[in-house]
């Protein structure tokens, strides 16, 4: 593992937790997911007026004339994903890397069917389940209640959730705090509970959005074995992470997204190496700019 290169990027993970972990290569099956030229456009309310960034060097009159008529508050369309296509197979674990704001989480949500694509299509075999860090179920309710709500939302029956209740609590390792409202949880506890809930349903496609970064070492070890379990059951795992070490230890294939476009798609080592070079270049450029 090239921890030296990754040292500055992987601030949230202790390399020794993952030392020696090599992604288990499961046999690749039929395609489980096809993403065909997906575009996603967000409507964002409350943006500043269009063209205000370059407005300083324009006259007042010019600024008024430039304004689009009829738009009272800044409603702006943001193109988050611009034509991404790929095919995922059963038993694959795919990492998605990219700098902040490159569209990783949006892509994941589109694949999970949570954000309908503006253009293009996503075809899925099975029910995807997304696990995000900000997926607060209901903060004012107890963890116990949230397990029920989360489980039912994922499509389990009440009896199934009750059956899995102990397993979920056990896996999340939060003990008696399960009877406290979730707003009283630490971010790590919340993330652990959410991971436990989302993976309890043994989904066909499990998507993890940065969630592993919050857990402690034992929890990360546990979640990795859970991920391998999903893959062994012919599921597909997606992982969004800024931590190259995490991606390298879990994923067999990596997609690199930049500004809503797919830059590279290939085996973990190749893409990670290319991505690291890119990140270093960006960092150098930034420090140079700061030095000026």
């Amino acid at each position, binding site marked *: 593992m090239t921890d030296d290169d990754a040292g500055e990027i992987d601030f949230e993970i202790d390399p020794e937790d993952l030392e020696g972990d090599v992604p288990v290569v499961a046999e690749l099956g039929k395609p489980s997911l096809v993403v065909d030229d997906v575009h996603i456009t967000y409507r964002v309310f409350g943006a500043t007026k269009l063209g205000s960034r370059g407005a300083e060097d324009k006259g007042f009159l010019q600024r008024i004339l430039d304004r689009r008529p009829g738009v009272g508050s800044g409603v702006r369309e943001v193109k988050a994903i611009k034509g991404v296509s790929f095919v995922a197979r059963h038993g694959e674990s795919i990492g998605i890397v990219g700098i902040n704001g490159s569209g990783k989480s949006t892509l994941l949500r589109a694949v999970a069917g*949570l954000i309908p694509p503006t253009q293009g299509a996503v075809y899925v075999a099975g029910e995807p389940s*997304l696990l995000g860090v900000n997926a607060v179920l209901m903060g004012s309710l107890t963890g116990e209640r949230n397990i029920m709500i989360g489980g039912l939302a994922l499509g389990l029956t009440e009896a199934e959730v009750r059956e899995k209740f102990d397993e979920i609590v056990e896996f999340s390792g939060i003990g008696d705090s399960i009877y406290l409202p979730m707003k009283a949880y630490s971010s790590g506890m919340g993330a652990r509970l959410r991971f436990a809930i989302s993976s309890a349903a043994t989904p066909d496609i499990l998507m993890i959005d940065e969630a592993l970064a919050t857990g402690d070492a034992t929890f990360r070890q546990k979640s990795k074995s859970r991920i391998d379990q999903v893959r062994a059951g012919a599921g597909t795992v997606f992982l969004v992470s800024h931590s190259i070490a995490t991606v390298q230890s879990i994923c067999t294939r990596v997609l690199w997204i930049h500004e809503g476009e797919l830059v590279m798609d290939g085996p973990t080592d190749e893409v990670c190496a290319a991505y690291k070079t890119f990140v270093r270049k960006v960092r150098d450029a930034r420090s140079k700019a700061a030095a000026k």
Partner: protein
Amino acid sequence: MGLRPPLTEYVRQLWKRRAFIRVLATSKAYAKNQNSYLGQFWAVLTPTLNALVYILIFGVILGVGKTGVENTVGFIVVGTFLYHFFTGSVNGGARAIRGNMNLVRSVHFPRAVMPISVVMAELATLGPALLVMCAIVWISGLMPGVDTVVPDWSWLSLIPAILLFWVFNTGIAFFMARWVAITPDIQNVIPFVLRFVMYGSGVIFSLESFVGDHPAGVILEYQPIAVFLYLGRSALLEEPAFPPDAGMWLWGLGWALSFAIVGFLVFWRGEERYGRD
């Protein structure tokens, strides 16, 4: 994936999530009044205080509520408690998608779950409030100058009236949820519309005594909110102006079903857009 399922498939998926709707509704109803010392007691206290304000202002000070009504207190209490159910559903429906973005963006389920559970949560908080409402109506009959209100079998007809009102409110919540999800500005207009509807439905005074002969009076008398208030009042009060009326029940049934069905279709047609904005 991410496409709108056909209607029958959508209804089937929704039916499969009925336990989810119920748990979400009861949890919401419970969570709403959790952050205070009196806790769940507020579910009853809020509508009571609300009724008290209107009784004082319109019944006692202005005396508008007395015109054409015998039991002013009972009249206003039934009106405000039932109207509270309606406003709760409208506001809840408006926030159903926009206020639960986290849930909507992290789990995949038929979005109609949200407005349905919001109104069901309102119904759950209405339950205990209704008991208080009946008690107040009964006590109001003991006041001097008012005929005693006898709890009899006709009180049971309050239950179907509330159920019809619930179906109607769910329909309204579907409309609100879709409109606000796509045009958030509508949320700012809601309070004014609600106030307008309140004065136009005879929540705190008898409409009939004010606009009875005016041509617009017919519209006001048979518009949905007025119909449901009529059904509620005819069940509890012994007002000469509110005799039990089969025609009104038909109106209520018609409004409830048509709003629920059209609302559901309108909501379903927007399904693929929820969560993107």
